[in-house]
């Protein structure tokens, strides 16, 4: 694994920990840095990272805390506190 991919991995962990500790803004910065590294190194972000971060406000999503998860017909909808809704197919 390249250094860039490892940095993204570490930042994902850090963002999750920061969000759990109530440091939402810090978690946001980690998420933004991970995104920036991914785009500069032309790497795909891990699926788990994509599903637990908001595409609009970069918040690290914690279902039940700052995100709502609903199972809809044919997809899962997860909405951030900022209003952004992401939809993922089942499976």
């Amino acid at each position: 694994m390249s250094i860039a991919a490892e940095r993204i991995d570490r930042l994902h962990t850090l963002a999750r920990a920061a969000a759990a500790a109530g440091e939402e803004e810090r978690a946001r910065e980690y998420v933004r840095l991970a995104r920036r590294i991914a785009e500069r190194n032309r790497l795909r972000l891990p699926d788990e990272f994509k599903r637990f971060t908001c595409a609009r406000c970069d918040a690290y999503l914690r279902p039940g805390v700052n995100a709502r998860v609903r199972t809809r017909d044919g997809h899962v909808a997860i909405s951030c506190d900022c209003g952004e809704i992401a939809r993922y197919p089942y499976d």
Partner: protein
Amino acid sequence: MSLTPETLTRHELNGLSARVVDADNPDLVGVAGRVVVETQQTLHLDDGTRVRQVPKRGTAFEFELVDDDALGFEHGADTRSASETAGDGPGAATEADRVDAPTATDEAAERRKASGSVSKRGSETPGVRPGQSGSTHEGSRDADSASRDRQDTVYVTVDGVTLLSRPAHRTETTGDSRWR
């Protein structure tokens, strides 16, 4: 390519434990804590009570690499050239002797680890860490005195000047491109 003393300056610093061992500003010497924020010119260290913003320029940081990092470190040591490890034979042996490794393989690993941490000199690692953006060049690298006290912890001292780069750009190897 995991987090090793060789790759540290290009790896993620957030979340690592660091200590200021030397600084132009005497008030900052001794500041220790986890790196929580990195900017182009500073690191923010959270010591539990407050977050100290420390300039990279003119500061020597001692980073603590532990556990899985140490395993990766062995990995990194494997890829190093034999001459480098051989050069530190005596030192490595004493290091390995001090730790009572239960099995031969462990001892070998220990030896590699030890030699890696002793032979951390900028001039010796050009192949391992290719030069990157102009602000961080090989000669100025001061990551030498990597000492170790427990089996799974490695301390790496880095001159803050080598970290002067935007956080997202530090990983890149500008100048390594073959597309010219």
